[in-house]
């Protein structure tokens, strides 16, 4: 396997002018991306996450040839993105949530047809890919509607289709589910999971949506202040930051003595003892058994470790 994306010491600085006195302005160079080393193999599905302003979009723009890096090396599909932008563009698909690749005044169908010519895709390949997207993303009801009249969820499904019609080796998605309703989110997520599962497309996505991360990202790269602070699986992230599963127990009556089991810490008591929350270091079986023996257990709920919490902790530890 060879690396589809490889960066070494990738940097991007922006010059910011600040007012200093009435007329004078001082110049500051701010590093939005500050030495990112990244290696992504063909077929990987990578989540690129971090707080707002961490440098996620800037990295993506450098990988796709939109922005010129201030320093470091970058190769995508074997190309240098900016000098070889046009050739790279044939090999990648890009969905930037806020920037449409579609033609505003044209029906979706015509945008797709136009893209076939722009990317010089053989008609049979184009038709096959479009047919797959049409059925999986349920495009047919709005295929003849001008893009400007589409709902956000419809448009996003159109954008994703547009990014895939030329059979890119890498699909970049910048917050593909932002602003979508639950149904659209699920539809988009299921589709992307399927694209990833086929293994012929490398997927890199940025997101703030934790369900996206849990569903889609085998590998997580967390970036903050332009630097990679974590690179590994979601489980590794939990292990590293000690996030734990929780058991929330609702009781019919408060207990005289709270249930105590090794590896389960009572974290909070609410409603005068009617709701107990434990944080676990071990599987929940022993604790639930102990709770059941009290005879007053009405309901029990197990909460998976919350990526949100991990990420929040990550962001706080700056």
């Amino acid at each position, binding site marked *: 396997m060879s690396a589809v994306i490889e960066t070494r010491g990738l940097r991007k600085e*922006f010059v910011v002018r600040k007012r200093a006195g009435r007329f004078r302005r001082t110049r500051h160079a701010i590093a939005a991306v500050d030495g990112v080393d990244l290696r992504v193999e063909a077929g990987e599905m990578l989540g690129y996450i971090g707080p707002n*302003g961490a440098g996620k*979009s800037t990295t993506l*723009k450098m990988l*796709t*040839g*939109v*922005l*010129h890096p201030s320093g470091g090396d970058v190769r995508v599909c074997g190309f240098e993105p*900016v000098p070889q*932008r*046009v*050739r790279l*563009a*044939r090999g990648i698909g*890009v969905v*930037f*949530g*806020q*920037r*449409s*690749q579609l*033609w*505003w*005044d*044209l029906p979706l169908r*015509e945008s797709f047809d*136009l893209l076939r*010519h*722009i*990317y*010089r895709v053989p008609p049979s390949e184009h038709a096959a890919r479009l047919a797959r997207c049409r059925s999986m993303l349920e495009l047919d009801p709005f295929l003849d509607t001008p893009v400007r009249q589409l709902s956000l969820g419809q448009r996003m499904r159109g954008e994703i289709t547009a990014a895939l019609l030329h059979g890119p080796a890498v699909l970049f998605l*910048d*917050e593909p589910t932002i602003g979508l309703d639950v149904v659209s989110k699920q539809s988009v997520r299921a589709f992307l999971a399927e694209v990833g599962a086929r293994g012929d497309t490398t997927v890199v996505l940025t997101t703030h949506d934790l369900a996206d991360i849990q569903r889609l990202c085998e590998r997580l790269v967390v970036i903050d202040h332009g630097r990679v602070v974590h690179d590994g699986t979601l489980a590794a992230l939990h292990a590293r930051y000690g996030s734990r599963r929780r058991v929330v127990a609702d009781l019919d009556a408060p207990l005289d003595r709270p249930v105590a089991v090794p590896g389960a810490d009572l974290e909070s008591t609410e409603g005068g003892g009617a709701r107990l929350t434990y944080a676990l270091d071990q599987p929940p079986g022993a604790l639930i058994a102990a709770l059941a023996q009290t005879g007053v257990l009405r309901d029990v709920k197990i909460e998976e470790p919350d990526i949100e919490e991990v990420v929040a902790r990550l962001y706080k530890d700056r």
Partner: protein
Amino acid sequence: MAEYYRLFLAQARGQAQYRASFWFDVAASTGFGVIDLLGVLVVFHASGSLGGFTQAEGLLIAALAGAGFALADLVVGSVERIRNYVRTGLFDAVLLRPLGALGQLIAMDFAPRRAGRAVLCAALIPVTAVGAGVQWTPVRLLVAVLAPLCGAVLFGAIFVATATVAFWWIDSGEFANSFTYGGRDFSTWPATIYGGVFRRVFAYGFGFAFAGYYPALILLGRPDPLGGPPWLAWLSPLVAAVAAVVAGLFWRRGVRQYRSTGS
């Protein structure tokens, strides 16, 4: 080229939804061309001759320069909209397609609605040439055809070069217009009417004298009243080529400078 043509067709189909505005713009474009030439007529009518040129000769200069400008405006005039693309970050979408960025912008914003003025000025070149008593030879015929094309390349280069300022300076506003429309106004009149440094900078520095003034001298068979050597009048193609190269370099630097916007 086929891809760019497709882009243009797509744009045209989108625009076709706004049919009334199309015909309004065609009329406006033609109307403004007429007004500009009426302005030339009025000034010459009042003064008899200007800078050593008669009214008929002055109109020929104005028609040659006007045709070059209008043609450039028709093809690349919309490049000034680059500042909107840069400001809103829409330029991202342009850079993500496997086509040249400048070609895409031209194809996406090419507006036949601006053709009125170009057609008007081009039609006036033979009319004003006859009026000014041009003795036709095959070479002069060629000059009459090539001059507006060289002028178009020159003005097109100015359009592109000044539009790239938006990459560095997003609120560039009317900065570009002072060169493009300023250049058009400069080249409408005989270069002899301008003085000193101003003439040197605009006529030769930016090359605006080579859009209308020098080709007209060739057609009229007149030596340069400014005392330039005879070969100077033939430099229009060279001036246009140099301007195009310089504009290309500006453009490349500008795209590298592009900062996009946060999302």
